[in-house]
């Protein structure tokens, strides 16, 4: 059987979701942001909630998420997305409100907004893309940067003594009663992508059930920031980030694992 005989509409088993626009993604080649965007929107499509979903993306490489995600989107100030999400879920209790935040955004300048939205148990989904660096601004150290890791503001490697240890946000906020579902995922292989997508689906379903905070951390590469090619960066991520930020569920149905 010839390829041309296979490539027929009726045989198509995978295509890009209609919840993503046709705009080319502005991300570097191989950047996990793209995959994270796509699976989040695939979930929105599968749940059929595209018309009731409101997304909030603060500054960060994903600041242009509104160009790519085919739902109503708000661009938020650095670190404040959880505050916006709080207000929206309070004034529109039946909408699906999610934030899409980087680690610099959520764990540095946005620490207070993150902790308090989680503590209040706002009925929202927080998608937290942790690439251990500030990608957008050119690769500065993030609160999640690994010990010894080189960035433009830790050019000789992160020193724990003076710069502190990488913060495990998921573990931290899992201690707060307001969080209902906290999990850490990755998106660099098909296996991880499938798992991550399941987690995101669970998160949006929790919103439907008004369960409070669903927090999905997604470990991702930043080939530009890490100064590696995408393949190497994914390997580096597995070898270095996974041990420090173990994948898996941290809190499920309000119960710590």
């Amino acid at each position, binding site marked *: *059987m010839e*390829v041309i*005989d*296979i*490539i*027929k509409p009726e*045989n*198509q*088993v*995978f*295509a*890009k*979701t209609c919840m*993503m626009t046709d705009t*080319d*993604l502005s*991300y*570097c*080649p*191989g*950047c*996990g*942001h*793209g*995959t994270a965007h*796509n*699976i989040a929107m695939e979930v929105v499509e599968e749940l059929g909630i595209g018309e009731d979903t409101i997304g909030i993306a603060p500054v960060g490489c994903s600041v242009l998420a509104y160009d790519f995600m085919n739902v109503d989107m708000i661009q938020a100030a650095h670190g404040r997305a959880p505050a916006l999400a709080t207000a929206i879920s309070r004034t529109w209790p039946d909408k699906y409100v999610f934030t899409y935040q980087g680690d610099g955004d959520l764990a540095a300048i946005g620490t207070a907004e993150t902790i308090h939205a989680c503590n209040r148990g706002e009925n929202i989904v927080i998608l937290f893309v942790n690439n251990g660096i500030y990608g957008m601004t050119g690769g500065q150290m993030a609160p999640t940067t690994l010990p010894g890791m080189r960035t433009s503001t830790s050019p000789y490697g992160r020193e724990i003594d003076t710069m502190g240890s990488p913060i495990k946000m998921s573990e931290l906020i899992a201690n707060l009663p307001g969080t209902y579902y906290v999990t850490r995922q990755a*998106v*660099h*292989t*098909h296996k991880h*992508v*499938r798992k991550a997508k399941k987690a995101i689906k669970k998160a949006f379903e929790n919103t439907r059930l008004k369960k409070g905070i669903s927090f999905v951390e997604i470990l991702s590469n930043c*080939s530009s920031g890490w100064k590696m*090619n*995408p*393949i190497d960066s*994914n390997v580096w991520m597995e070898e270095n980030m996974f041990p420090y930020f173990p994948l898996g569920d941290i809190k499920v149905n309000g119960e710590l694992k």
Partner: protein
Amino acid sequence: MAKVKGAIVVDNETCKGCEVCMPVCKDNVISMSTEVNRKGYHYAYMSNPDACNGCTNCAIVCPDRAISVYRVTL
């Protein structure tokens, strides 16, 4: 168990040549073109069509969703 045969179509202009689709293809169906696209990237293509089983692994790891997958059961 029925044999399945697959095929992929890569959108050359969307592809950024990141190559993350290659390692997830157990059957090494995908290679990178020598030419570059308008963005200046070497794009992926189906170098070994017969081996493709349409598992979609490559497509779901593609950050730019440049791959669409087709499958038939023979």
